[in-house]
């Protein structure tokens, strides 16, 4: 195994402070440089993005090409089959949506599989932990709950939710949660999803050579497919996870590499699904294993999360989180990671190499995700311990045989995490007055200007965490309440904005509301499938009233300023199709000045949906989002100061 890449070819020198604002990551990047270990930051510096690919002006959908159009003069040429830039751009975009949707829905389907086995009594390791949530989810899709047992409800719920994936006609179950006016817009456009398999299949079919060559028609199916992610696969994943593992409510928890403990056996779980992690929690708390670790000379076992797996358990159990996507390689350079176990999505292949360099035991666990050089221990829901025991054993063994020099960054950032939709209700009214009314009221009276979802990955093409943090700071300063998921929320947690004290950085109005509720100005919601919680929150804001009839009327906006995955594209499209203005950073894979681009950035809004936006600079991005929020406030007639209405008896009769 060659760790020192510098021997291979000349590397472009990078200043670590230019590529990240995460102190721990910078420290480890320095260490990696000293150790001669390559990482994504370095590779990105060395790898110029493919210019044709960056504009998505290349078509590889058949073998008459690949055809390459000129992004500078997009209508000057067509492909061999005659495909225009709009067709090519839309088809490429559609393939990203299909892939992103497939990732989330497959994750959700995995959860449904486990749920079924739990309901049928075939799995004993998991059980229905949150019966209240079970009942409320069932009720939301018209399953009778009064006087029925959890088992009966769960059986019906399983059958119903399975339709999210397998149904071939009709509407997916959670379409019932969509605000009526928004649903009406979808129905009119013919984009209410039927079932995930069907939509992804149709999208893949349509983007085959010689099928759908009308970009507007392709975008419709993009929306339909994306919606089956947001309101289907992702939402099912969130809801089943809550039912099986508990609905998050705020916990004070820590983020950053400082939570690694030199004198402990350190195990990191990285990836996206909660199953492996939940079982790892059980294994690492097993007294027998703690004893074993102690026998090996450790003081205990320290379990940490990274990426979205980490975000799930950070919110649910307060398990410390070591860092977001781009920090996964650097954390290994601490030398303190005895084992890293991964499941699916956003697992860089290079982790296998980096782990080898620092003698970290690196495990793949999911049959969908195997990596050359990794130890594969299949995680099987019926017998999770078969997998987790091996990982813990290997970690203890590695602890005893640590060879790498240990250097752990000191930084530990505490914050409040775990704002589920259910808790937000409670937070705003207690057990007896739980509702979104205070949120809507304070938006209407202008204390809160609007709500922004800032989500998504980190990407070595932009300075890690910088755009997230600066964007969010700018938003809260302008009284925009920010909700977060995924790697973005970890960036803000490291910056200390998940603490209630961060309210001092907010504008006067938002600060006052934060102080009243006792909440931070930035609410951390969970992993990237938990973007579905934002959809639910938007629906609830509409239902609560006073802010319009559809999601498109709400003074809200979304952003993924440092995204890197196709999942992000799919998420963006489902927010846009649901009615939200969604701004992306980094790059946008569509040629500017084309009809397709115009449709995404303007046309969809005219049809009653949201629209896309793009900006690199965080302040520019904030301005675009705030302008949009103000535009919606204007349309709602809530721009100025609200008059105090005094109620007479006539008013009460009305």
């Amino acid at each position: 195994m060659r760790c020192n890449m510098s021997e291979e070819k000349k590397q472009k020198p990078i200043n670590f402070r230019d590529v990240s604002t995460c102190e721990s990551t910078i420290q480890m990047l320095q260490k990696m440089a000293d150790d001669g270990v390559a990482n994504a930051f370095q590779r990105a510096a060395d790898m110029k993005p493919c210019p044709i690919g960056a504009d998505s002006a290349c078509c590889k959908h058949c073998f008459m090409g690949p055809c390459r159009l000129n992004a500078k003069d997009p209508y000057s040429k067509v492909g061999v089959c005659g495909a225009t830039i709009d067709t090519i751009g839309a088809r490429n975009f559609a393939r990203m949506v299909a892939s992103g949707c497939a990732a989330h829905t497959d994750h959700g389907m995995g959860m449904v599989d486990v749920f079924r086995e739990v309901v049928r009594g075939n799995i004993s390791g998991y059980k229905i932990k949150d019966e209240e949530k079970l009942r409320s989810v069932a009720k939301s899709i018209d399953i009778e709950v009064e006087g029925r047992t959890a088992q009966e409800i769960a059986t019906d719920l399983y059958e119903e939710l399975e339709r999210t994936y397998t149904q071939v006609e009709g509407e997916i179950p959670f379409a019932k949660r969509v605000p009526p006016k928004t649903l009406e817009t979808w129905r009119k456009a013919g984009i209410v999803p039927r079932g995930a398999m069907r939509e992804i299949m149709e999208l893949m079919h349509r983007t085959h050579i010689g099928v759908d060559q009308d970009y507007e028609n392709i975008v419709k199916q993009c929306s339909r497919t994306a919606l089956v992610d947001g309101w289907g696969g992702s939402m099912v994943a969130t809801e089943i996870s809550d039912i099986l593992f508990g609905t998050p409510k705020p916990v004070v928890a820590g983020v950053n590499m400082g939570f690694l403990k030199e004198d402990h056996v350190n195990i990191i779980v990285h990836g996206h699904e909660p199953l492996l992690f939940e079982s790892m929690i059980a294994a690492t708390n097993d007294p027998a294993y703690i004893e074993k670790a102690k026998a090996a000379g450790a003081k205990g076992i320290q379990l940490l999360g990274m990426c979205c797996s980490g975000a799930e358990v950070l919110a649910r159990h307060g398990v410390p989180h070591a860092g977001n996507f781009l920090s996964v390689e650097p954390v290994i350079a601490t030398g303190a990671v005895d084992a890293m176990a991964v499941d699916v999505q956003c697992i860089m292949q290079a982790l296998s190499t980096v782990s080898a360099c620092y003698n970290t035991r690196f495990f793949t666990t999911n049959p969908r995700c195997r990596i050359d050089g990794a130890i594969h221990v299949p995680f099987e829901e019926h017998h999770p311990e078969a997998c987790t025991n091996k990982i813990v054993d290997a970690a203890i063994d590695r602890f005893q045989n640590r060879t790498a020099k240990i250097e752990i960054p000191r930084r530990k950032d505490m914050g409040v995490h775990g704002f589920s939709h259910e808790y937000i209700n409670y937070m705003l009214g207690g057990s007896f007055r739980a509702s979104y009314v205070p949120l809507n009221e304070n938006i209407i009276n202008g204390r809160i200007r609007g709500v922004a979802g800032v989500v998504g990955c980190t990407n070595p093409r932009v300075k890690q965490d910088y755009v997230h943090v600066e964007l969010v700071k700018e938003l809260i300063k302008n009284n925009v309440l920010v909700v977060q998921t995924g790697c973005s929320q970890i960036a803000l947690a490291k910056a200390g904005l998940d603490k209630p004290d961060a309210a001092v950085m907010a504008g006067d109005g938002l600060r006052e509301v934060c102080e009243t509720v006792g909440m931070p100005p930035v609410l951390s919601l969970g992993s990237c499938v938990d973007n579905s919680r934002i959809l639910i929150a938007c629906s609830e804001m509409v239902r609560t009233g006073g802010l319009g009839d559809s999601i498109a009327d709400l003074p809200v906006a979304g952003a993924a300023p440092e995204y890197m995955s196709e999942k992000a594209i799919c998420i963006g499209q489902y927010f846009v199709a649901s009615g939200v203005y969604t701004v992306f950073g980094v790059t946008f894979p569509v040629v500017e000045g084309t009809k397709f681009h115009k449709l995404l950035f303007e046309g969809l809004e005219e049809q009653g949906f949201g629209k896309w936006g793009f900006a690199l600079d965080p302040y520019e991005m904030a301005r675009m989002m705030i302008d949009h929020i103000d535009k919606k406030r204007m349309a709602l007639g809530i721009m100025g100061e609200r008059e105090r209405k005094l109620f007479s008896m006539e008013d009460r009769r009305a």
Partner: protein
Amino acid sequence: MSRLVCFAVIQGAYNIVSKVEGAFKMAMDKYGANQPLAFPNTAYYLPVIYSILGVKIEKLADAEPVLKRCRELLPPHMSGSIHTPYLGNTLDAGMATILAEEIFEAIRYVEEPDFYLHGEDCDLENGKIWLGAADDTVFRKRGVEFVDGSAPGFAAIVGAAPNPEIAKMIAEDYQKKNLYTFMCANQSGTTFAEQLVQAGVQIGWGTRLVPFGPDISAAVFALGFANRAAMAFGGVKPGDYATMLKYNKDRIFAFINALGEVNAEWAANAGGAINWGFPTIADTDIPEILPTGICTYEHVVGNISHDHMTAKSIEVRGLKVAVTEIPIPVAYGPAFEGERVRKDDIYLECGGGKTPCFELVQIADMDAIEDGKVEVIGPDLKDVQPGNRLPLGVIVQIAGRKMQPDYEPILERQIHHLVNYAQGVMHIGQRDIAWYRIGKSAVEKGFTLEHIGKLLHAKYHQDFGAIFDKCQVTIYTDEAKVKELLPKAQAAYRTRDERVENMTDEGTETYYSCTLCQSFAPTHVCVISPERTGLCGAYNWLDCKASNEINPTGPNQPIQKGEVLDPKLGNWKGVNDFVYKASRQSVSSYNFYSIVYDPMTTCGCCECIAAVLPMCNGVMTVNRDYTGMTPSGMKFTTLAGTIGGGNVTPGFVGHSKYTVTQRKFLVGDGGLKRLVWMPKIFKEEIRERLVKRGEEIGIPNFIDMIATEENGTTEDEVYAFLEKVGHPAVTMDSILG
């Protein structure tokens, strides 16, 4: 700042819940699990616990699970530099406080049965002023005022003012704004209620200044009052806490004034009240919670000076109060209606059987009268010695294009409460049985007989300005003149009565709706015909007609009764269509003349409730003032709880006292002949008319065939009585058809 409030609320909640747990344990040891635990004469158990949790507390042991719930509701103490959100926790802690306090107060009723007086009035002579939980009779009577808007809300005053003068200023200001003031807690042993007594202010339900109790735990009585209103008039189901609290926020305009230092226990109560949407306004510099959401506007506002306390409070609660400025030298408003002028305080007395006295409103020609002219013919107050009597005749002449003779009785009926609204003036009765007492305190402030005319003129214009243009008042105290005019007035009363008596439902195409109570009972609709007056007793057909004339878009709308669907039961298509729409699609049809088949609904403010007694093959009726048991097995208050809130409940119907002697009373089920039982006080009250109706139906001694509680309060006893007297119901067709 909120963090400090929340910290205090949570601390206070722990104190209170722990204290009540201790009191409960001692009570269990002393009295045992089966010791009855209740507030006096109520069908709503311990009303906050019943309404919020749906739990019926009947005996001591029932309180145990509630205290357990209180303990569970107590959130973790706030600590550390990073905390999780506290608003939800604070509200829960507040609720735990309120629930626990209700148990505490109920235990006090066991421990010290005489701690609270039972009724509407204080007993100042014996130094007993605390009234505790309002029983259902008081609550229903007063609740109606909240429903119809004559009391737009209440102020719950906690603590004490710096001195009695300030207490008096605040209390009288709320009285002028028509609000009720509920008082509890003390500030170093001084209470607001006692300050009022010291300042010479009459307290009690009658003057809307209600001393609940000397401890903070008595705050729960105010919330219990509010929640009973929601259950009784709003049809909110016990245990449906979300609807209950939303109802309070939207419809019961209450707030708290914290006077003096706020301790943690007060804070816990304030936190509890926020659940209801009731904000706290304090005179001390306490941390504020301003953003809106749980309450309509601010939640906690501090540092308000006593001069601004009342105005700021109603603004924070979002309440619109119309204050009437009447050109008389004493305070004026409904809050003074119940105030008495006691024997020793009388300056002048008229009527009441001691001197001739009458009131008459008559239509006049526009040119014949002068608007605003008030003339006193005979001696005025300055001409008599304190404690004297005079004869009195009050003649009000009204003119205007829209004025009709039909409106005379409506305006005349107002005299009673309009005169009563003046502070220091008492009025009882009407027509030629009117009775006036003018107190020394009023005369000291410069009140004269002329002011009676002034206030009538001002209020008539304010309330009825739409139906007339001119109003002139002449007040006679000259004995010869009064004696001369009295027979003329009596003749006018007779003519008027005959005119109304002769109106029939069949002969009238337009009925009137009354949705006045929809402020509290959103799905209830009354429809009023000439032969079926409103069940609250306040509105007859003519009243509605006039009200519609005054306010064409108001709660009284004309309804073309339309096609007759059932003449016997009293069912019309036009009426049904209106009711369906106005009840927000909850009631599609009801019958005017039946108790058995889809009877008319009630909001809960009915004067009386009739119930079928199947064994007796008849019906009983009970009036609100009668608190005893009835042959239906239920007291009035339980009956009202069963049928209120705008539901059709076959076998039961709400009605006014007057309706019993109207020709159409239950005519679809056999009419008055079905009436087998009524309380004695009720029978005596309507004796004259009942005798007359007996003659009309051909059974002159019918009144004596109706059983009262003296003949029995079970169906068996009543049946035996009916057999003995040969009551017609016994041999009629089965009432259940």
